[in-house]
């Protein structure tokens, strides 16, 4: 099967999202579709799968023009779209989820469990994975759920599979399994469109790379003939000679000192400190306990023992309220779940941790509050028409800036950033790094949890590596390599 999209254009109102896009994918090929957020990747895929109608251009399948009316239509023709956010019903079993809306019934209208089970097993075998069919799907890891999602699409005899950020929520190990599956499917002749921001993966798994920018396809290469710098240049439209800004830290006093911090069964005996002006990266595999340590420090979750000192003084941070009072800020991993009130305005998100400071005669001094919010919107270059725009309407990068504005505004001296650049496009990433530099120049201590090893190596001063709930080692970033961080992250020790 070969799909050719030719001269595709699409506008929403006056907003021209796709101008003249050409994209080709064929059986047995893994084709990366890259571009910053807003470049038009999703729109293009939605047009391919019939979710949106194009204003111009044509789609040819094996040379014949086609037009799909909806996702089901596309699926029947062998094109499946695995969305970034899965729509599983956590309480229902794997089998029930796999056959939802496609249940096999016998002639009395009763579900034919046996037949469904056989079919499910057959397709899982094809992926060479072993997944129990009778457990609630919500009890399985995200990685496993994703495999089930892929299996589901294969039941429809998929020829072209679209994977939208499939690795975003997976652990390293799960990514390996995902790649095994992709390679297996490739051998079976399935073509795949792979959307991801992670350069490393793109170069590992794909055969072909097409880059989109501002609604145009700007370049298309065989993966073997191109390098990361060229791709970034194509995506951003300018030469990012240095993707990560330089670090020229000047350290001050120790801002945060954590000693023998323990939460039984979650993490044990964690001790570290971070100085004013420093960026301490927390690395480790997904599930190693990095996030859990930080949540307990900030007072979201409980801990059993251990002490925290801020600026040399021992403090008891029982809740985020206490932490904020001690000038600690925490950008959570999941900004939609814990970072933002999506239905509230940018202003009401930004000033929330600081709102108690704007009380005059018992009521909020609205003018002072507005000035404060405006100042932060400007300083963090949040792109919005006004401070009253809803946070939920912003792009990922701008949402992240709003969360950062919250913590910059609350005067954080210790700032914990959990995956600060996840789901953020290249341009906004750079702005976030620049802001982190500016903050450390002003004496803020930053702890950055990141699953992106390039980022950890490229933009930190020191790296603490967590393995199975304890600190397995610390390396100065200038001495660190991908290999020695991975050694520590997988439980090994570094030889002196």
């Amino acid at each position, binding site marked *: 099967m070969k799909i050719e999209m030719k001269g595709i254009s699409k506008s929403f109102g006056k907003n021209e999202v796709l101008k003249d896009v050409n994209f080709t994918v064929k059986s047995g090929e893994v084709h990366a579709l890259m571009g910053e957020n807003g470049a038009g990747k999703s729109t293009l895929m939605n047009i391919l799968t019939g979710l949106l109608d194009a204003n111009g251009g044509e789609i040819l399948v094996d040379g014949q023009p086609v037009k799909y009316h909806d996702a089901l239509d596309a699926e029947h023709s062998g094109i499946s779209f695995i969305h970034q956010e899965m729509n599983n019903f956590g309480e229902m079993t794997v089998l029930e989820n796999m056959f939802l809306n496609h249940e096999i019934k016998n002639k009395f209208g009763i579900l034919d469990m046996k037949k469904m089970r056989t079919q499910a097993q057959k397709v899982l075998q094809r992926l060479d994975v072993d997944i129990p069919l009778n457990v609630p799907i919500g009890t399985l890891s995200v990685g496993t759920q994703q495999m089930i999602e892929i299996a589901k699409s294969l039941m429809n005899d998929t020829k072209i599979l679209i994977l939208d950020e499939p690795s975003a929520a997976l652990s390293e190990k799960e990514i390996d399994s995902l790649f095994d599956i992709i390679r297996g499917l490739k051998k079976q002749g399935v073509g795949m469109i792979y959307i991801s921001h992670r350069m490393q993966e793109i170069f590992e798994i794909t055969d072909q790379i097409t880059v989109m920018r501002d609604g145009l396809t700007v370049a298309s290469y065989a993966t073997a003939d191109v390098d990361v710098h060229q791709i970034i240049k194509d995506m951003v439209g300018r030469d990012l000679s240095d993707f990560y800004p330089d670090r020229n830290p000047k350290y001050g006093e120790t801002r945060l000192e954590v000693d023998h911090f323990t939460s039984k069964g979650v993490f044990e005996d964690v001790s570290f400190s971070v100085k004013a002006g420093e960026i301490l990266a927390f690395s480790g595999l997904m599930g190693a306990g990095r996030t859990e340590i930080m949540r307990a420090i900030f007072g979201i979750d409980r801990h059993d023992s251990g002490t925290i000192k801020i600026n040399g003084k021992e403090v008891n941070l029982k809740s985020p309220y206490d932490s904020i009072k001690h000038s600690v800020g925490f950008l959570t991993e999941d900004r939609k*779940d814990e970072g933002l009130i999506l239905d509230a305005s940018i202003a009401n998100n930004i000033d929330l941790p600081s*709102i108690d400071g704007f009380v005059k005669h018992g*009521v909020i001094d609205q003018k002072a509050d507005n000035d404060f919010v405006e100042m932060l919107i400007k300083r963090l270059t949040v792109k919005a028409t006004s401070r009253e725009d809803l946070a939920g309407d912003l792009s990922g990068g701008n949402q992240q800036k709003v969360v950062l504005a919250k913590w910059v505004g609350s005067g954080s001296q210790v700032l914990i950033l959990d995956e600060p650049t996840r789901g953020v496009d290249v341009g906004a990433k750079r702005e976030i790094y620049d802001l982190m530099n500016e903050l450390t120049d002003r004496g803020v201590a930053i702890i950055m949890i990141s699953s992106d090893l390039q980022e950890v190596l490229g933009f930190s001063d020191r790296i603490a590596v967590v393995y199975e709930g304890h600190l397995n080692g610390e390396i100065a970033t200038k001495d660190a390599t991908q290999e020695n961080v991975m050694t520590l992250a997988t439980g090994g020790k570094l030889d002196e």
Partner: protein
Amino acid sequence: MNNTTETKAKGSFDFGKFISKLGPLVALIVLAIIVSVLNTSFLGINNIMNLLQQVSINALIAFGMQFVILTGGIDLSVGSILALSGAITAQLIVSGVSPIVAFLIGVACGAVFGALNGVLIAYGGAAPFIVTLATMSVYRGLTYVLTNGNPITGAKMNDSFSFQFLGQGYLFGIPFQVYLMVLGFAVFYVLMHKTTFGRKTFAIGGNEKAAFVAGVKTKHILIWIYVIAGFLAAVAGMVLTSQLGSAQPDAGTSYEMDAIAAVVLGGTSLAGGKGKMSGTLIGALIIGVLNNGMNLLGISSFFQQIVKGIVILVAVLLDRKQAKN
């Protein structure tokens, strides 16, 4: 190019926005016009006063209910709190306690009943619907125990000028409880829209986890919100007891539904995080005009219930449609 689109947006009349902003008010005015055309005595001063008197009690309860609903919760126990605190006050007055002291004890009890709801919800982690469904039954049961199932009344209650004034008195030709409603509106309007407490209430309703991470003492605020709901229900209970001159064991039955209806008609989202105090006042007035109008028009109380239900449904469906656009 940007400029031209902006001016156009400003120049054109945004009907959707207008409706969502003024919808409840428009509905109230239209309703009032219809009723006054059908029955001219609707606009008579006596009838208006009567209407406002009826609205006051529901409005007071609804103000508290709105805080609860803004957090994404619900309080089904307000009707029972109204009855129980009314009975407590009546019992105290009948036993010779000074009416003012009895009044204060009554509203304090309402606040405590609300606090109990709040603690169970905030610390027990149970759903507000279930907790207040249970306490609705408990508080109603306590009312029956306290009153033995009979109204509490007595000469002392009708002799007490200060207590009687609450629900029967007039000031400058306007029933005293209307002043209470206006005062309640002013106080809680400021609390909701001008203070950090109000902002935190909206934040909890918008995203409780994010509010907690941003340093909002969510449990604290939740408890206070149920205290407010209980307190206002008790105040309404005082007014009703005074108006009737007795505490009825089944007073306030299903009042929670009228309060919820007022809040929803006023445009507050049951999911929490969105709403306006003025909307709730208008919502209470809409229900008041509906009740009053249908009485004037001689519509049987059986049909009144049907009409009220339909009005609420239509309002909510219109609101949903608006939200989708």
